[in-house]
């Protein structure tokens, strides 16, 4: 780059002082070669700044937003999420039989009335009623886990009680998309999570207690006492 090129560049980049600009313009006036070189380059810069701009269409912007931003959950989706939240109940045999009868009758009745809808029946959870089995030194409590997941293909549970192996404890599907399993547990404190379709790990948002798993998620906590 020679001296002329350098001063033209500095002029185009607005780097000349007022005095230098004056001197440059005087030189341009006196030197036709410098004037020609400057005008050629100046024209390129000016024309480039005036090139027509593409104005994105409203359709493109809508499509762009739809593809980039995840859609907010619809009212229906939020309703489904609320309905499909799982509950954990503890009971003894007598209570289980009574509750099961009531639940079956209630669900069957509701389904017969409104088969196309899933209705969440509020259940009052009383303090855990438990029963001991086996030797006095090795008491166990039968705990029934329930998860409502109408769209799930499989549901299992992994926790401290099964070595966090979801393949070991699978839930059975019943009418209305209710998945259940009853497992005998020794009194103690257990952490667990449900596994839906073999890959989706679900913590229990309604568990009485939860605990961090050390990886940024929360496990449900189950306290089993006699």
């Amino acid at each position, binding site marked *: 780059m020679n001296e002329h090129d350098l001063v033209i560049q500095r002029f185009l980049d607005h780097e000349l002082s007022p005095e230098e600009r004056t001197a440059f313009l005087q030189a341009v006036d006196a030197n036709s070669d410098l004037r020609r070189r400057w*005008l050629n380059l100046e*024209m390129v810069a000016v024309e480039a700044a005036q090139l027509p701009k593409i104005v994105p269409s409203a359709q*493109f912007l809508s499509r762009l937003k739809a593809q980039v931003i995840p859609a907010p959950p619809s009212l229906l989706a939020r309703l489904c999420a609320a309905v499909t939240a799982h509950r954990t109940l503890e009971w003894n045999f007598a209570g289980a039989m009574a509750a099961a009868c009531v639940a079956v009758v209630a669900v069957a009745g509701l389904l017969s009335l409104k088969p196309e809808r899933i209705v969440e029946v509020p259940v009052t959870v009383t303090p855990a009623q438990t029963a001991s089995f086996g030797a006095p030194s090795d008491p166990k409590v039968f705990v029934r886990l329930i998860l409502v997941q109408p769209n799930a293909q499989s549901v299992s549970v992994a926790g401290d009680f099964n070595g966090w192996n979801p393949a070991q404890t699978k839930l059975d599907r019943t009418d209305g998309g209710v998945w259940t399993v009853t497992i005998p547990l020794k009194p103690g404190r257990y952490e667990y999570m449900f596994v839906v379709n073999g890959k989706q790990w679900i913590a229990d948002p309604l568990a009485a207690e939860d605990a961090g798993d050390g990886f940024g998620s929360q496990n449900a906590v189950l306290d089993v006492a006699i």
Partner: protein
Amino acid sequence: MPLDRQDEPSDAQLVASSLAQDQEAFGQLIDRHAAAIVNLGYRMVGNRAEAEDLAQETFLAAYKALSTFRADSKFSTWLYRIAANKCKDWLRVKRPGEGQYDLDADESLDLYVTEDRTPELLLSQQQVAEELERAIQRLPPLYREAFLLKHVEGLSYEEMEEILGINGDTLKMRVYKGRVQLSRELAALNQMR
């Protein structure tokens, strides 16, 4: 890039809202910056449909990496950086030869810049614009990138340094060489007519 208006949330505020799961806020950022990103892409790759795809990739990458955006930088600068990298990636894949352009090989072009006639004397305004569009596409990608950011997008060399991660002297040289080549091509066009 559109300037922040006083009666509207700033880009930084919209970024903060987006991080707080306000999805509409990121939509506003798209509304503000989509045109600039599409235009940069269009003039880098020369095809509107590809430019829109690149804009989509740019905003998708920005959305996913929003938590890494540092507030001490302008959002538009950050977005330009992502877009410029997307364009270069596209050129490497779709036009492999262009991505490896040897800048030094173009030094000799400077020796042939002088022309006898100024282009604007012979070409109409519209013709100049059309020819300039085509000539920009023929620029080596690194010159094209620097020239577009400087003269089409109107950015300062300081902003360009931040976007491209290249020092100002190198950028000035690329811009200058881009101007020289474009000037030469337009002048040569006049000679042919």
